């Protein structure tokens, strides 16, 4: 799942939870899924971090 997809799904989950009306099991499932997605999103952020590399054209043939 990409970051954009995860954020979209999170929006859906939050909307469902905020609307209420889900039963207890469903609520817990949504909560669990939401928590995992949030972790995924944060992980995605750290994956974009690291170093700046400069290549030499001679070396990339």
């Amino acid at each position, binding site marked *: 799942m990409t970051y954009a997809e995860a*954020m979209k799904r999170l929006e859906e989950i939050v909307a469902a*939870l905020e609307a209420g009306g*889900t039963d207890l099991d469903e609520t817990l499932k949504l909560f669990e899924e939401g928590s*995992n997605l*949030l972790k995924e999103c944060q992980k995605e952020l750290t994956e*974009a971090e690291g170093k700046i*590399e400069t290549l030499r054209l001679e070396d990339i043939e």
Partner: protein
Amino acid sequence: MAGEPIEVGQYVSLARKALVNEPYLANAAIIGELTKLTLARSGHSYFTLTDEKGSIDCVLFGGNSMFESQNIQVGSKLVALGGIDVYVKTGRMQFKASRVQPVQNIGELEKARRELIEKWRKDGTLDRPRLSAPHIPKNLYIITGGGSAALADMQRLIADRWPDFSYTIIPVLVQGMGAPEQLIQALKYAGNRADLIIIGRGGGSPEDLWSFNLESVCQAIIDCPVPVVSAVGHESDLLVSDLIADVRASTPSNAVERVVPIKSELLALIAQVGDRVDFAIDNLFTKKNEKISSMIIRLSAAPMKGISNAKLRNSRLSSRLNSAVERNMLTKKNRLLTIDSILKSTNPERVLDRGYSMTMDTDGKPVTSIAGLKEGDLLSVVLRDGKVTTEVKK
């Protein structure tokens, strides 16, 4: 007076020395029309460059192949790189070239550009579906002039938006001889590794930007399997690469603004969603708890056939019902607590931080209802930063 006469050879040597030691003359690029060309058997090329105001004989040692491969003929406009020299034996001044390059005039270039756009409009290339840039590029490649102001601008802006953001730079020539080949080579390399490519350069004259109007360079952008952002020149420059790239940025800085998110904004967004999840859950559980409690009260208070309220309250049925509900809630609550501990790592603002507290009995079981509590019972209350023990007064 001019003093004692000196020998001609010595004089010409002195003149040569003065000329070749003049940096401005020793290292120059001159432009003119090729009016005479001899490709000697030795492989050396002898030629003359001329314009309205002057003319000079030139030599390019071993230059025949350079003339032939570029199809340079008399009448072409040429740029020659090199420096001045004097052939002492004849006293003739000549330009010793190291490289020659034909110059197309901007009129011809513009015509080629229009034809290219027209061709790609007709065959649908301009309307082809574009790739979209990833929300967070994890393998951004930047192809631009090494040490250029454009690169420095982009680097500064990326560092502002997302310190520690990782990316790869491929420095290339962006104008002049060799630039198209280097741009294409870099694009092909990055195309197999990146998840997003920014290719571009800062502003310059139309001729300087011309690589980005070339069919070969633009075709390499079209063929690239990953999304390419074209970021060339200033806002007002519209190049063919801008028309065919997946994303058009008006300047190199604009390219960064379009594809590198601001990290703090993303973090805030994630925290906000986390808070909303938390808050919604709190809300739901409070409601469910209230509903169950009120059901028990209503059940206990309801006049039931054959059983008095007092009897019901004391009956085993009531306690069974109570403990069943309690057990059920306990399991759910425990599960929620486990999940909540998962969320701790993702959501900085925790439930307890917002002023909620958790109450447990002396066995460490969560107390969720006043049912079963008596005066004098000890309870421990968990707050954000610790636990206190309290006594039930009434």
